[in-house]
């Protein structure tokens, strides 16, 4: 096995490297060389390739997402804004709430149960990482037509996966969506939202400050999960021997995550960490480079200290592994003993894998050999930025001209038939066949869940303070007019909060689109972002975070533009909420608005 070290990279500058197979463009590879002043080692190449991927670097969306910050009104409620693992808002009484949506679309297409399950697991760790106790989840879902074979293949697993993982974590599922449309054949959307609560003083950030502080990896052992892509590297470094089979599928262990949550909350309560980051996409590559660039600037990591589930993993693979249920914490040496003790109480695997340093080097060694030496910022934040071409697709004008005559029912019989027909469509029909597979009672604080328009949970039993969350997206509107579609989805989600009696406070989003390399899709995306930013400005709501999922398409057919908008609201006394149902006879009915 040939280990590619920094020394070898220097001595052997012209070795050919499989950057294209790893998804890097020639100019991206060239700029890595320029940053380093030499060719990257295979481990460095692995790190850059995954951190500069669309998924991690937002290279196609960044230029548009900027508006969320630029247009935003100043909000006193915003405690932590975009950029951290999840935004945090003040909800009063010393409480802070954090919430975020993420997508796990592609993994759920490949392995529906595990894809959906690990999607829930990932967003829950994001929330936990902020220092918060996760208190509820929601799951906006999209499928092909209900009777399509692809839907039959993916739907049961996705629902069971969301439920299996969320139920086992003890998180009430307080809402979501199930929508069917042709364009989601082969591209189911699995978006998962999590809400967490903490005291202001408990907010944690992803930064590795303080030279001499320890880098601690805790949670599950590292396996070969989700590194199908880097096998090309392994096969190069392993010469022609070829690597063992590497699964592209991540498998979740919700029990380990539940224990990890309780263990972490106990660690937070004793104020034992300086900074913390969960390991999600891009695993250790992401956690080490983000922690280092968020803090003092440098870090030394001994990669051979990472506990492995599969001892045959190469250093490149360990850096890329997306094994679930892991966290990386920065701990002062004086607090490490107590940290280890709490991990032992919860039977959580824990290892010190490195330390924070001054300066600007992320140095990773493998059995004493230096295999990575990079400025961490260049990995985590200085990825490429694209201003992709956009063009309004031709269909926009065509559909705008189209006049569709919808027959309006007028006789009682016609009205009855129409209502029955509508009620029987999968999109409008009762969703309890889904929601009955989710625990909505656990934690004992659920005030509203299905079938209400927004979910609501109590966060203080004595004062009755609570939060409400709603998610909405209307992809048909967004298809016809992406600018207005995003605004309408925002307005609908905010209305769903307001009608429950809560005050909208903050916005998160998950932007699901086709390929950014298609100018038409890119235009839909840009318009949606513009609409959402303008809508938030008009409503005076800050956007606290979100997620972009591109490449949701089969061949050249993209999904409908699906910007899922989540709005969080606060309610001072959950007992005053207004539920959706009419709970007694004799009430008056009013219609508000025009």
């Amino acid at each position: 096995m040939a280990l590619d070290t920094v020394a070898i990279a220097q001595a052997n500058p012209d070795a050919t490297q499989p950057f294209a197979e790893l998804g890097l463009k020639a100019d991206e590879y060239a700029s890595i060389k320029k940053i380093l002043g030499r060719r990257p080692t295979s481990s460095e190449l692995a790190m850059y390739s995954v951190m500069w991927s669309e998924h991690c670097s937002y290279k196609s969306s960044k230029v548009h997402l900027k508006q969320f910050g630029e247009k935003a009104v100043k909000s006193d409620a915003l405690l932590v804004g975009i950029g951290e693992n999840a935004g945090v808002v003040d909800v009063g009484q010393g409480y802070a709430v954090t919430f975020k949506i993420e997508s796990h679309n592609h993994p759920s297409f490949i392995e529906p149960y595990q894809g959906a399950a690990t999607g829930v697991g990932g967003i829950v760790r994001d929330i936990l990482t902020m220092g918060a106790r996760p208190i509820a989840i929601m799951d906006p879902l999209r499928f092909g037509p209900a009777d399509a074979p692809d839907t039959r293949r993916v739907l049961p697993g996705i629902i069971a996966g969301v439920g299996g993982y969320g139920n086992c974590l003890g998180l009430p599922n307080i809402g979501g969506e199930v929508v069917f449309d042709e364009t989601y054949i082969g591209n189911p959307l699995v978006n998962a939202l999590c809400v967490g609560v903490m005291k202001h003083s408990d907010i944690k950030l992803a930064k590795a400050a303080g030279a001499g502080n320890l880098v601690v990896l805790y949670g599950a052992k590292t396996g070969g999960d989700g590194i199908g892509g880097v096998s090309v590297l392994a096969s190069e470094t392993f010469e022609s021997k070829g690597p063992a089979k590497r699964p592209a599928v991540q498998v979740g262990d919700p029990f380990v995550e539940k224990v990890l949550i309780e263990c972490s909350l106990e660690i937070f309560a004793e104020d034992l960490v300086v900074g913390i980051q969960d390991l999600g996409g891009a695993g250790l590559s992401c956690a080490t480079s983000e922690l280092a660039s968020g803090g003092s600037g440098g870090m030394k990591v001994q990669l051979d200290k990472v506990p492995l589930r599969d001892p045959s993993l190469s250093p490149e693979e360990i850096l890329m592994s997306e094994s679930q249920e892991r966290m990386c914490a920065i701990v002062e040496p004086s607090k490490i003993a107590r940290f280890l003790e709490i991990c032992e109480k919860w039977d959580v695997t824990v290892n010190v894998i490195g330390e924070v340093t001054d300066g600007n080097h992320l140095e990773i060694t493998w059995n004493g050999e230096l295999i990575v030496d990079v400025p961490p910022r260049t990995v985590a934040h200085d990825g490429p930025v694209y201003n992709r071409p956009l063009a309004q697709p031709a269909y926009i004008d065509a559909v705008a001209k189209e006049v569709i005559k919808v027959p309006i029912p007028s006789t009682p019989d016609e009205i009855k038939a129409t209502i029955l027909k509508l009620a029987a469509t999968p999109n409008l029909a009762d969703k309890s066949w889904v929601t009955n597979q989710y625990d909505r009672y656990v934690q004992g604080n659920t005030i509203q869940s299905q079938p209400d328009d927004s979910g609501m949970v109590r966060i203080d039993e004595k004062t009755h303070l609570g939060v409400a969350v709603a998610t909405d997206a209307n992809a048909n509107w967004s298809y016809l007019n992406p600018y207005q579609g995003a605004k309408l989805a925002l307005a609908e989600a905010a209305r769903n909060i307001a009608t429950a009696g809560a005050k909208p406070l903050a916005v998160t989003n998950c932007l699901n689109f086709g390929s950014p390399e298609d100018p038409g899709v890119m235009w839909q995306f840009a318009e949606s972002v513009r609409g959402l930013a303008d809508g938030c400005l008009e409503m005076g709501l800050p956007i606290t975070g979100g997620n972009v999922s591109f490449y949701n398409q089969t061949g050249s057919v993209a999904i409908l533009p699906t910007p899922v908008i989540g709005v969080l609201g606060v309610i001072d006394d959950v007992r005053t909420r207004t539920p959706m149902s009419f709970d007694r006879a004799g009430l008056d009915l009013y219609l508000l608005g025009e």
Partner: protein
Amino acid sequence: MAKIVVDVMLKPEILDPQGKAVAAALPRLGFSFAKDVRQGKRFEIEVDGDPTPTQLAEVEKAAEKLLSNPVIENFTVRVEK
């Protein structure tokens, strides 16, 4: 009457949370024999008479299509008397 047995196990490289939990529980009960435990599924399929080669081929197909998930699992088919 014969019995066809289909054993379905997670592929070796795939995490097996159940097997791991069992492996961790055994020593707590004083059992120290296990280096590793993997947990899978066993299907016992009853067929009329001795299974024919065609039948076994069908079972293979069913194992691939329904009884296992080829993305994460392997299976074996055999006849038990």
